[in-house]
């Protein structure tokens, strides 16, 4: 059931609430009836070249209720809508690359605390995940629960160093977020 299908005109600014409890406000960019998708941009008026807006594509049937805030001009200029596919591809690739790098840093199936320790260690030492073990400098291994006793491997100097850093980071983390894990 489409709610207010006729009122979803381009350029209208609405304030709405979804069935999932979310509230938002924005200007209608488009409403596609067959798919029932409403495109809303946050921020009124035409976005200039390079100007960024938050955009929402929402299925209209999830809109619980809404109010019309105002009526404005078409925020999209059909003549100026150009898709630079090369740029889009590039952007996607860059984003994927970045995400992969970040994903490498995230341990699979590790506790957030472990992840925090990992992040803290990675500031000064080269660290990698090996299942749920943190491998430092490819030599020293820290197993769950990531206490200084769990540090093993590597030269004694490296070992000691990792222990120290681990200890230090634990203290720091505990001081910063007491009670939180």
């Amino acid at each position, binding site marked *: 059931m489409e709610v207010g299908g006729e009122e979803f005109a381009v350029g209208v600014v609405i304030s709405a609430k979804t069935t999932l409890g979310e509230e938002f406000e924005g200007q209608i960019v488009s409403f596609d009836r*067959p798919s029932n998708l409403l495109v809303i941009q946050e921020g009124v008026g035409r976005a200039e070249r390079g100007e960024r*807006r*938050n955009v929402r594509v929402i299925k209209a049937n999830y809109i619980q209720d809404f109010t019309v805030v105002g009526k404005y001009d078409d925020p999209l200029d059909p003549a100026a809508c150009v*898709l*630079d596919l090369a*740029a889009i591809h590039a952007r996607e690739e860059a984003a994927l690359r970045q995400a992969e790098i970040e994903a490498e840093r995230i341990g699979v199936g590790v506790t*957030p605390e472990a992840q925090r320790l990992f992040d803290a260690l990675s500031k000064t030492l080269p660290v990698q995940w090996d299942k749920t073990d943190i491998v430092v400098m490819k030599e020293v291994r820290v197993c769950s629960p990531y206490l200084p006793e769990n540090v093993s491997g590597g030269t004694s100097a490296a070992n000691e160093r990792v222990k120290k850093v681990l200890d230090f980071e634990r203290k720091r983390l505990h001081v910063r977020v007491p009670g939180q894990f």
Partner: protein
Amino acid sequence: MSRQQQQAPLRASANGAPHRKLDSGRQDSKSHLMRSSSGGFTSAENGGKLGLTSPSRDRLVYVMTQFTGHHVDVHVKNGSVISGIFHATNTDKDFGIVLKMAQLIKDTSVGGQSNPADVLRKPDTMIIPGRDLVQVFAKDVTLGGDELPKGPVHDKRKDLMIDSAISRSHFPEERELERWAPDEGDSDCIELEKFDRKGHRSWDQFETNAALFGVKSTFNEDLYTTKLERGPHMRELEKHASRIAREIEGEDTEDLHLAEERGIYVDEDLEQDEEIKYSAVRRDTDTSKLKSFMNVPSSAHPFDPLTRPGSIDTKDLQDEESSSHIFGGTHLPVTAATSVLASEYQSNKPFPADPNRLDDKRSKDSSSDKDNRNLRPENTLSEGGRPLVSEDPEGASSRLRASEPSSSGQGDKSPDGLAPDSAVPSKLHSAPEYVNSSQIPGSSTSSTSERVAANSAASAPGLSPSSSMGSLSSDKSTLNPNAKEFKLNPNAKAFTPLTSPLRPPNPPAPDSTYYYPNSMPTTPGPGLPVGMGFPQAYGVQPMVYNAQPGPPPPPQGYMHPSGQQYGQQMMMGQTRPVYYYAPEMQQYRGGRNY
């Protein structure tokens, strides 16, 4: 691209149910709405199909396409939220979403933990079917189109904030500036700024390092600097040291730079512009002293060195231009002795400076420099014969040679005077670089007579080879006194480097072939003799590394086995044998390091 729907392998989706794989990223691009700059978008298809060409549909597709590559949050029916990089949507059907590197952010499905952050999952590609889709929320989308690509692409700019891109863009123009405040917990940074009154940091890096990482430092300051003995004598030592320092610093000096530092006034009338003062290469030992090479007898020194049997080869003196500069700073007695010795040893060694001379030189260094300079312009030939005779050790020696047998007596000056007179001019002509100027008028006339007397006395070699050897090192000599004597080996093969000693810029031939003289497939014929010569020469001759820049022939590339060049090198070899340090060649064989 086919539009068939395929049975996809089980793919993760929001609710875990297997579903048909959606046609990945089929996007209708409506020509009247969108102009694509490249046709490389694999999932795009031109031409409106299915009759869904309404403007609203177009807009929707446009916006969804703009999402590509953005991080989006997809809300699904059950309330869960999935975050990932927007990859594609099925615009034909129900607008299912394909996300890459997607993760469940908020899981409200049955059986899911309330806080999914307990266990993080590895990001993966996710497909959300259209029927589950509630909302796609994307941040920072450029609905108005990307900025014109002037440099790196718009979003790439976020990755690499290069200066030109930053300065080029005017977004954002002005910002409300806030004073920086450290984040909580970053109090470590503040420690770096702990200074005490004196400005010394109250922070010991070694101590901190040891505490943090258990690293023990082996730094010992005394390894790098002299240890000061702090004790009761410290005061005295300091006073003593500073007195010495003051003495040294107040010293008069010839060196222009030092003089300037010390504030000593230097003659302004000397033509010295900035270049000479500060940047030109100073060749004090060479030219200046060479020009001021004078047979100026120093006073009150026994002329012993000159009592050698003069067997000077004028030739030696003449072509010893290089050695003449060794005379630099030395004066008549020096020159006499050196010339004498030169003849004896026929070597390139610096002319010996015997002890007498050395002392003499040191004491008279500055004064005699001036004397030499002053005397230089004077025409030596204009002086009388007698002083000239006495001043001219070369002449004297040559004369000695001739007249030695006859000049037994002290008083035999006239023959000396006569013969030398004739000899001298010729001698002078032949050795123009030696300014045989008159001695310092007056002061040395008295001594000259003595000297002549001593000179003309035939005597056993006053200077023994050993003594001269020992006193070979003159202060300002630039020749290496320890160098091995040069012996011309007429049988020496001129060493032809097969390649220029400098790194060749563009090797035309494959890598190391031309370095290997024996295995050069590309250079036939005349190359062989050269190639064969190479190892031979290497084996036979003691190679001396010639540090001169550039080989004698112009570097003509790597293998020019023309016999002509070889011959050329042969000639050059005779006059100036150039030996290239063979091991260096060997290294080339191994491979170049560019």
